[in-house]
């Protein structure tokens, strides 16, 4: 069985963001980088599938500059067999259709049985790449998966809907699965695996070799939203604040009768 998991390196969301000089994306300085949280679940699920099927080869793909290799090493340490690094110095300048195009171009002749990825990235949050890859490769795709099971070529998945409801679906492989938070518990890489990961194949492919589609949209401007606020800000001693708030609630709402 051949499995592909696509991951993205994103900034840690706790970072203090600034707009870059071009004004169209966030500045890359003073940022801590990590694997997109949704992709962690994808990697874990891919590794679990590999462990279940036993005779499987798992590739992790990531697009970006050299620094994304660190994140790829984590995926390798979690259990991926090899890495495909698409070397791109301007990955954040590309939009989902191009990203999907690159991945589809890479995957098209490789006959993957399953392609896993996170349902969206934490920074851009478009949530499109997974399904676009599916459409480009002519594969069925299932999104927001919170439960995954595989047996004899059939995937049984549960999609997370609003209100805590789940939709149970199944489809025959090959397919694309986009993963939602809580699908599994991503493992902490063990030291022997971290060391083995250093030796696993990690090939870099220049992005121009794989980018065969034009971009369909771009960012005109990136900026900080206006602080709407407008609300009252109260500070001080807890007991006094409680008094103040009760007064306000009595004045402005009918909840305290």
């Amino acid at each position, binding site marked *: 069985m051949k499995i592909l998991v696509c991951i993205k390196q994103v900034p840690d969301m*706790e970072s*203090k963001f600034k707009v870059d000089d071009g004004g169209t994306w966030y500045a890359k300085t*003073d940022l*801590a980088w990590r694997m997109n949280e949704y992709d962690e679940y994808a990697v874990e699920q891919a590794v679990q599938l590999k462990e279940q099927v036993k005779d499987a080869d798992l590739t992790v793909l990531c697009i970006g500059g050299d620094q994304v290799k660190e994140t790829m090493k984590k995926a390798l340490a979690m259990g991926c067999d090899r890495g495909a690094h698409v070397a791109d110095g301007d990955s954040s300048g590309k939009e989902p259709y191009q990203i999907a195009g690159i991945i589809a171009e890479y995957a098209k002749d490789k006959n993957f049985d399953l392609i896993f990825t996170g349902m969206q990235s934490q920074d851009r949050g478009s949530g499109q790449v997974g399904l676009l890859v599916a459409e480009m490769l002519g594969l069925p795709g299932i999104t927001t998966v919170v439960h995954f099971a595989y047996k004899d070529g059939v995937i049984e998945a549960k999609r997370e809907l609003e209100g805590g409801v789940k939709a149970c679906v199944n489809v025959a492989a090959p397919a694309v699965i986009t993963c939602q938070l809580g699908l599994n518990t991503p*493992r902490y890489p*063990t*030291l*022997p695996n971290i*060391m083995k990961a250093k030796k696993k194949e990690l090939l870099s492919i220049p992005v121009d070799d794989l980018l065969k589609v034009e971009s369909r949209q771009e960012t005109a401007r990136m900026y900080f939203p206006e602080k709407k606020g407008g609300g009252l800000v109260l500070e001080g001693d807890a007991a006094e604040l409680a008094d103040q708030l009760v007064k306000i609630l009595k004045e402005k709402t009918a909840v305290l009768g």
Partner: protein
Amino acid sequence: MEFTREIYWNVGHNAGTLVPMYLFAFTAIGLLVRGFLKRIEIYKQGLPLIRTDQPARRLLHMLGNVLLQKKVARVRWPGLVHGFFFWGFVLLFIGTTLIVVQADFTDLFFDMKFLKGTFYLLFSITLDVAGLVCIFMLGGLLVRRYFFAPEGLETKKDDAIMHGLLLTILCTGFLIEGSRIAVTELGTPLSYWSPMGLLVAKGIAGMGEGGLRAMHKVLWWTHFSLVMSFFTLIPLTKFRHIFTTSTNYFFDDLGPKGKLVNLDLENEEAETFGVTNVKEMTWKDIFDADACTLCMRCQDRCPAFNTDKPLSPMKVVNQLGEVAFTNPEANLVDTFGKDVLWSCTTCRACQEICPAAIEHVKKIIDCRRAMVLMEGEFPGEEVMTAMEATEVNGNPLGIGYAERGDWAAELGIKPLAEDAEVDILYFVGCYGSFDKRNIAVAKSFVGLCQAAGVKVGILGKEEKCCGEPMRKMGNEYLYQTLAMENIEVINSYGVKKIVTTCPHCFNTLEKDYRDLGFAIEVEPYVVFLEKLIASGRLQIDARELSCTYHDSCYLGRHNDLYDAPRALIKAAGGKILEMDKNRAEAFCCSAGGGRILAEEKIGERINVKRVKMAAATGAENLISNCPFCLTMFEDGVKGAEVEDALRPKDIAEILAERVV
């Protein structure tokens, strides 16, 4: 009259006595040696470890503790009872040896007798007193074990045999002496130099010489046989501690205290990390089990054990021995239990009090390393999250690394990247940089430095967690990664001196980092501030302060810093209402051993228990010197519902309030 006695009187100094006697003796000693050789085979299952370097220092350490019973006597009454028993026993042993040496060696071959005259008188009375002391002390220990046993003291058949055997040996000794005196010395001035023997003699004189001689002979051989049996039993029972506990001091860890062994992570051949099997422990770890006398002192002081967690340091040590001797293939993590292993706060109360020089903490960390490095297992998801946060942002709190130095901006403190010409590098630590309550302490410390005219620099966003909680949790890889990054950055600035306000950072930089080639001077803030005050550079206006003081584990037991902080509090005008459990007996706040990252899910909350101890002193302020302690106490005063009565504070804060 001549002050001496006939050795082998009544028994006969002839082949009929000597041949069986020496045969028996050699057999017994042979069995003793063989017994230990078999045990040594078991110790050797463990990995090699060099504990024979600096032999003179080691010998002195051993003699000091064995002869002076230093650590044993730390717990006053049972300690001194054992001490006196030990000294009596040693004297009796030396005395008996001298008799044999004279009778079968110096006298036999060289016609030299030394057990005569004044020497013999002193010899005689010393041994009589020693014997009496031994009987009383052993009696006392017996009464304690069988009638007033402290809770949890395990008493086995072994113990009955040991008490019985030694008491019988001691008592037969006096009976033998008494019967000899009754026949040969009654009425002589010499007899007064054996007061106990004389008492016994007077009591049994009525038996008549014939009866006395018969009894004497029987008892002599009985006594001798019992002593030989005692020899053979040494390796087989707790008696072995005579040799194992004493030599364990020779093999003791010469320090620095609490420093863990660096794992060689560059070794590509290594397939396993950490310990799950007895063969991955060192021989010393297995030997520790033999040195243990089950005195329970470690368990009595363990903060985890005393709050209903399943960890007993004594049990861990002994289970390791059991496994080594009876089931060496067993998985140690399963044997000890995961909850047991995760409960340890590395407070060192166990090792500090242990009279057998046992190293408890290392065994626990070794197993944690296996769980983390080989299985990716942690005590809870919250710990894994903290580890991952540290990997991403260099701090377990998950706050953006770029903000690490922001707290200092308003004080005009610059990171070294902007200005490296500083007097000291203040290594702030994660809590001091990001946690609101502890930022206040960092600011207080910097304020004190500025008042003393000391120019302070920080690493700011270049500083990463020192790695201590990660290391203690078993994540050696993450620790070494952080450490090497910190060392590289610090070295690049040509820093001359580092001061820390966190004892965990201090301990790690001062000891653990040295294994990674770090050579810069590090000082804890209490020492640094004390020097500033002593030199007059920092003036403190003493103002009354009702307080009690908590000795943190990592400044206290790990670094023996008990006086400097007290001097600072005194300089501030505080009169400390000391808790019972203070200094080396202080009770951990619960956050050591990496547990600052974990949730406490089992038993009573350790921090609440400690806060209650502090509240019981009646003090208004609970002063500590560690960000973990401060955090635990802020939580603890709420849990103990004494928030209005007891305020947790750091030493830096009370000094900053009083700076002139």
